[in-house]
Structure formats: C-alpha cells, structure tokens
C-alpha cells in the first residue's frame, strides 16, 4: 500500500481526544479487539481453508499440501511456507505488481509467528529422508482491508492449518505416489495466536482499525503459544516504545491471546 503522506490532522487529534477519555472512534475499550468470525472449509478443493473477519478486515487463507524436495540442510523435516498478499480489490490504494516492503513484512511476520511456535510437527512430513518430503503452503489473501492485517492473516492461516487434511503418499521407485482416500489430520503441536498493538501518544490500543492504523506512532505484533509463552514478535512504525510499554504489551498479548485461542478452537472443532 502507498504510504499516506497527508495525515488527516482532524482525525488524529480527535482520536487522541477520545483516548484521553478512554474511548475509541468505534466505541471499543483500549484493550478490546474487534469481533472475530472464522469460517473453515470455504475452499473445499484445497487441503484446508478458512475465511476470517476481524471487524471489517477480511482474509481468505488456503492450504495446499504436495510432495516437494527438502531444504538441503534439513532432510529430516517437511517444508512449511506462509505467504500473504493484499489483493488490489481490498483497498483503493492497494497496488498491483511485485509486493511492496510492507506486504513482504506482513507475509514474513505471519510465517515466523507460526513457524517459530513449532505448530506443525514437520518431522512427520518426511517421505524419504533427504529426498522427498511433504510441503504445506499456507497462502493468505486480504480481500478487504480495515486495519491490522497481521492478526487477521495469522488467524486465517492458523485456522486453515488446524482443519487441513494431509493426503498420504508412498514412495514407489523413488517417486511419491498418492494413495487415495487416506487423509489424516495435520500434526498440530500448539496453537500460535498473534496480538497486534499500536501506540498513539502514550496510549496502547489493541487491534487498531484502519483509521487508527494510519495515526499510529509505533506498533508491535506478539505471538504466543498454547503454553502462554512468547514465540515471536515484531516492532514496526517510525517511532518507539518504552520498556514499560513493551512489558504491558506482552501482558496484553498473553491475556488476549488466550481468549482468541478459545475462539479459534471453537471455530476449528467442527472441521476435524
């Protein structure tokens, strides 16, 4: 997305005024995320899928599972790759063409949050050590942008991965051959949940919507796993945080992460 050079002066000062009173422009509390709706199995032909609505932000995530060659130094592990793309129909300033730095950051942060948590047991994806493994690709696309793509894409990818079905392949003459009708659930070890917070002035707000996003001084995305430990984080924006603020953010990411994990669990129960 193009960087907006004209910051609406009225909007930022109005947002700050409201924050002084403990309010936000959409009536939420400072530590309140927007309503989260998760539908799974929306792309039946894919191995797994989910559509997430976080407020008015909408993401569709699809999982493709197919045989692949392992990375040279990791012959005993399957492949996991996460991508994210802001579709041009998601926002008037979304561009076509090769991905811009902010989209690349989005994809990599979502990828790291899931990878570093060890969510998928990749050792179960080996068909023949050093030769042939299973690759799981989680591709998320933003269809409607109303702020906080980091969390929305992450929830969509996680829900899609949890409900995905892994086909069975057997090696025959050094080639993986698909065995029909022998799918299994994905080997999940933990459920990583990301929580993104922004700072405007001295206030920390959770799950900024797009109006707030454009006025942030700085932002941070923190991912926790099912044990409540922090597995990944990323700070962004042109300004910084104090140590105190960072500690507060970590606490928020754990408490709010817990609640959202429950929502994800409920939404993905039926899909299994």
């Amino acid at each position: 997305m193009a960087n907006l050079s004209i910051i609406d002066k009225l909007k930022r000062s109005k947002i700050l005024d409201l924050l002084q009173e403990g309010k936000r422009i959409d009536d939420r509390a400072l530590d309140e995320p927007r309503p989260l709706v998760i539908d799974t199995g929306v792309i039946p032909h894919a191995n797994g899928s989910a559509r997430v609505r976080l407020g008015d932000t909408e993401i569709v995530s699809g999982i493709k599972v197919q045989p692949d060659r392992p990375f040279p130094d990791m012959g005993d592990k399957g492949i996991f790759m996460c991508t994210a793309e802001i579709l041009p129909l998601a926002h008037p300033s979304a561009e076509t063409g090769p991905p811009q730095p902010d989209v690349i950051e989005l994809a990599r942060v979502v990828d790291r949050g899931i990878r570093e948590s060890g969510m998928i047991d990749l050792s179960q994806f080996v068909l023949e050590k050093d030769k042939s493994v299973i690759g799981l690709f989680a591709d998320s696309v933003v269809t409607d942008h109303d702020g906080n793509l980091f969390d929305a894409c992450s929830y969509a990818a996680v829900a899609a991965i949890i409900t995905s079905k892994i086909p069975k392949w057997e090696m025959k003459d050094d080639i993986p051959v698909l065995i029909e009708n022998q799918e299994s659930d994905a080997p999940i070890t933990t459920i990583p949940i990301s929580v993104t917070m922004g700072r405007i002035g001295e206030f920390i707000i959770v799950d900024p919507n797009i109006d707030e996003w454009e006025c942030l001084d700085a932002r941070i995305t923190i991912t926790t796993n099912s044990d409540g430990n922090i597995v990944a984080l990323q700070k962004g924006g042109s300004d910084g945080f104090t140590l105190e603020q960072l500690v507060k953010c970590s606490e928020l990411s754990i408490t709010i992460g817990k609640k959202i994990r429950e929502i994800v669990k409920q939404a993905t129960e039926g899909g299994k």
Partner: protein
Amino acid sequence: MGGREANVVLLDENGIRSDGRKVNETRKVTIKAGVLKNANGSAYIEFGGNKILAGVFGPRDVHPKHMSNPDTGILRVRYHMEPFSVGERKKPAPSRREIEISKVIKEALEPAVMLEKFPRTAVDVFLEVLQADGGTRCAALDAASVALADAGIPMRDLVCACASGKAADTLILDVNNEEDQAGQADMPIGYMPNLGKITLLQLDGVLTADEYKKCIELGLEGCKQVYEIQKNALREKYFSSGDKD
C-alpha cells in the same frame, strides 16, 4: 492428466454427464452484489465449483499520468488466481494465461461501459479466483458486470457469460473442468442480451461449421440464464425492502 481420461465417462447412454447434468443444463450459479467494504462496487459468484470475487474502483485518478486518456476514461482489468485455487499450487506472480484472460475480459466489457463522461480517469476491475473448476473466465466476467453496476459505472447493458462445448461427440452447455480436460471443444461466450452483441468468444478444439453455429446458440441460452441471476443479485441489494419483522 492423460491417464485419467480413460476413467471418465463424459456422457452415459442416458445422455447424462459425469456430474449428473443433462447436455443443455448449466451448473448451479449464485451471485451476491456488494460484498466488500472498501471497493466502490463488488460481487461474489459461485458457478459450479468456481468461486470468484470481483472488486471495482472508479472512476478514479490514473497513475502514471501518461496512461490516462484526455477524451475518455479507461478500463483496466486484472484476472488473477490464488495459489490455493487450483490442483497444483500456483505461484502468486501473474502467468501469461492470466494476462491473456485479463485482456479478453476487458475487451468483453468495453462495449458495455460508457466512460466518455469521465476523461482522464480509470475504472479498475479486479477479479480474484479463489477456487477454479472450469469456465473461470466466464464466471469472472459475470461477476465483473455485477460489480461494475454496483459501483455505478454507466453501462449500456450487463455482460453475461457462459461456455458451451463438445464432449463425446455431443454439444454441451457449461463445460466443467473434467470436460475441459478430456472433451473435444470448449467455447467461452460473453454476451450483451439487450443489444444482441457477443463480446467474448474463444474456441479450443475442433467444430464443423454447423456445430459452430449450434454451439454458439447453445451457449447464448446459458448466458441468458445467468443474465437473470445477475439482475436478481442487483435487485436483491438495491430494490428489496430488506425488512424482516
């Protein structure tokens, strides 16, 4: 894909196709208008197993400026498939096939849209295939028309589309993925019923001169059926009372 052809019965002795349809029957089509918050106009279509999202922005400023036309607005179309939309994962970057389909859809819509009143602007149509199941360009064109109308772009008519073809020596309506792979001809058609103009036409396969004419006529029947569904989608958004007491 070669090994699968032998196993698929495209047409059985009762004239029923591999997915249970008769030869002149389209798959199930549903369309919803106005599904996105940011786009000026939008539509979502399910055409058989195809799932496609269309978003329109415009008329709006053109960047870079040298692309703008001082006498009229320009139409830009991008047809794009998601990595998870097809059997083998597709890389996100645009393929030559997507670029050609984008052009063909643009040229199917240009006769319908009236952009002379908006010089130096552009109308952008974005078509995203979430799941592909044969006939995506027709389904995408169907969604594009509804999204353009939803955005308030002046149009002489909606453009409707459906493919006809030939399989097992028989002319069929609305070719699905299997029939496209293993059949004898596939002919996507785009049509403006009000003006009687065909604005998209391609052919993959071999037809006699007589089959060609009949195939188009069969395809136009399908187009007209989709036309009604497009109109109902717009009526539902704009004209229904919507109140459920």
